[in-house]
């Protein structure tokens, strides 16, 4: 390890590559006074396509920052890691008042901000159409599909867990789970897992 000369500005890479602490500065602490390495736990509870991505993207970003990441899949979130459903998550307009279509702005300026009426979401096949549109938009951004994303997260070292109660309730078997899921764990196990972690419920 090479020494860093005075006045040299080195980006913070964490771990062994941190800048020498300035005299008198305390180590960064979170609210609880915890000073260990940063850890993130994401509780993924939804099986809708649009609600699968926030957890996947945050997990990927955190893993790339050297943060220990765990994802806990519970209730409908299990669909994200169930091999029979993960490639076929759906997006529905129903119940979503923030449903706008950017392309409508080309017809009449301002229409791109128009909240589409709820009854439109109940037109037959509308969920399928909306899902296809969202999948296309996601792919256009170079963002992987859910199954590919799970492979990427596995390679990045993200740990994944399934919720025992939901798993039993949905009559799943271990063979249904994406291989990145390391185990089916209880709420008590989750408490141990999330000790000293920043936890997000999605």
């Amino acid at each position, binding site marked *: *390890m*090479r020494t*860093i*000369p005075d006045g*040299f*500005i*080195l*980006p*913070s*890479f*964490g*771990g*062994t*590559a941190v800048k020498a602490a300035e005299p008198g500065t305390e180590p960064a602490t979170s609210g609880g006074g915890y000073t260990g390495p940063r850890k993130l736990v994401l509780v993924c509870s939804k099986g809708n396509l649009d609600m699968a991505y926030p957890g996947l*993207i945050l997990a*990927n*970003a955190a893993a*790339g*920052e*050297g943060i220990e990441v765990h994802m806990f899949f519970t209730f409908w979130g299990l669909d994200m890691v169930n091999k029979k459903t993960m490639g076929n998550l759906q997006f529905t307009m129903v119940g979503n008042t923030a449903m706008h279509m950017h392309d409508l702005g080309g017809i009449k300026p301002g229409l791109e901000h128009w909240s589409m009426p709820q009854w439109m979401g109940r037109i037959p096949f509308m969920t399928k159409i909306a899902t296809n549109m969202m999948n296309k938009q996601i792919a256009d*951004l*170079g*963002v*992987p599909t859910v199954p590919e994303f799970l492979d*990427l997260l596995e*390679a*990045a*070292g993200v740990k994944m867990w399934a919720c025992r109660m939901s798993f039993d309730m949905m009559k799943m078997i271990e063979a249904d789970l994406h291989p990145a899921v390391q185990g089916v764990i209880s709420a008590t196990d989750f408490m141990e897992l999330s000790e000293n972690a920043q936890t997000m419920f999605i």
Partner: protein
Amino acid sequence: MPSNTIEGYTFTVNDEGFFTNREEWSEPLAEILAGMIGIDELTPAHWAALKFMREDQASSGVTPTLRRMQTQGNFDVKQLFVLFPGKPAKKMSYLAGLPKPVGCV
């Protein structure tokens, strides 16, 4: 804009310390910087990733993310985490003399 000097090399950096001008980078400088961020030796595998990053940034104008390294460069993400432990994308962009990646995925 601040600048860093080490062993006769001088390069301008942003407030965080990342390169602002890719032309001020050189291979011997990358070797020196690697030693400063805990990578003792740049092997051919390290160089393959760094060179891809520079080439891709030259053509796209944007520093590639890990996902782009995987899809466009056929790099194994797991391997990149081994080669550049902790924050692979940031470490690679630093050693390649580029800004840090800004993409979400």
